[in-house]
């Protein structure tokens, strides 16, 4: 494949008839338990399209009520937190949120294409 065969993303963005320009959007949901259908207690978003700039403290309502609700809306799960037992002597320590689930959605960033 020659370099000319794959136009850069910026060129593709100017030509809606060119090949799709996929970009990843990432959603992180923190759930109340280790089951994917348990309620959302926290969330973060990262947008590879550059169309939005999610940030800390930008909303009080979660985008979904559970991890399964995100699946039903088309998000693809690609990572869930492992279940790791507490180290001896640290059974009562509280630290990071334990039940972290990463989702992705692929978006075509050519002008006028879907969000």
């Amino acid at each position, binding site marked *: 494949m020659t370099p000319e065969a794959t136009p850069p993303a910026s060129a593709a963005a100017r030509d809606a008839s060119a090949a799709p320009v996929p970009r990843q959007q990432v959603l*992180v949901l*923190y*759930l*109340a*338990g280790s089951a994917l259908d348990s309620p*959302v*207690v*926290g*969330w*973060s*978003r990262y947008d590879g399209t550059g169309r939005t700039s*999610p*940030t*800390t*403290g*930008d*909303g*009080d309502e*979660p985008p979904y009520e559970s991890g399964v609700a995100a699946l039903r809306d088309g998000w693809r799960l690609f990572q869930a937190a492992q279940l790791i037992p507490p180290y001896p002597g640290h059974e*009562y*320590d*509280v*630290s*990071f*949120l*334990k*039940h972290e689930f990463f989702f992705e959605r692929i978006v075509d960033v050519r002008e006028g294409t879907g969000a």
Partner: protein
Amino acid sequence: MENSQELLNSVRMARFVARGSLQLDAVVPAEMNAEGLAVLAAGVPPVPYGTPLSEAYAKGSFVRRLLELPQVAGALRSLVGPEPWVDHHFVHIREPHGGEAQGLHGDAIIDVRPDAFDVQLMYYPQAVTLEMGGTLSVPGSHLRRTNESDTGRYQNLRGQDRLVCPAGTVVLLHHGIWHGGRRNDSDVRRYMFKIRFNPRVRQRRLWDTSDLHDPRVTAELDVMFPWYEGATGRLERYNRILLWRELTGDGDFDVDRWVTRVSNRPKETVE
């Protein structure tokens, strides 16, 4: 610094132990807030780390008068006792439509003292709207053993506190609480003045304990926050009970026997 003080009662103290914060709305009078805006805009000269409070700010100075307000002085006395060290202070300014939101963080290095805590005072001389992006804090996060900005991945948590307050509000925070300045999307320059205090006495029964056995104390310590996972939320209560035992000296205090059943190791044998 021993002027009139309005000490916290046990119910409010228990609320601080559970939430990690205490908000005193509009306790600073309007004329002082106008003065405070000018003082903060001009900058407050630094104070060497570890200066005793009575030596840190000149008599009659704005900061001294702020800290002598009865509700502020009483809350500080209740939480850290007399003559704390001034750890450091800082004027935070967020320009209109400027800056990025800070990631959630705890200040300084990881601090896991089970029987003591520092307090951070935050003073807001102007009314803070949601759009102005005041301080974000997460109720009940202060006992989590996380280091500084390692929590930056978390953007939003259910039940988070996006500060909105009237002018002259003072917030007191446990040093471990997850917090961060939100992005300022307004047309207004936003000010906040922070002072961190280190206790110099044992933080035991420093408040008005006449209501120590009020059932509302237990209710405050038993609260669950919407962002807690089910299992870890129970551990939060366990750790809170241990802190309350330290603060009161009551080694038998408990809520729903969470600690009692765990520490139950009978020594008597059956003949």
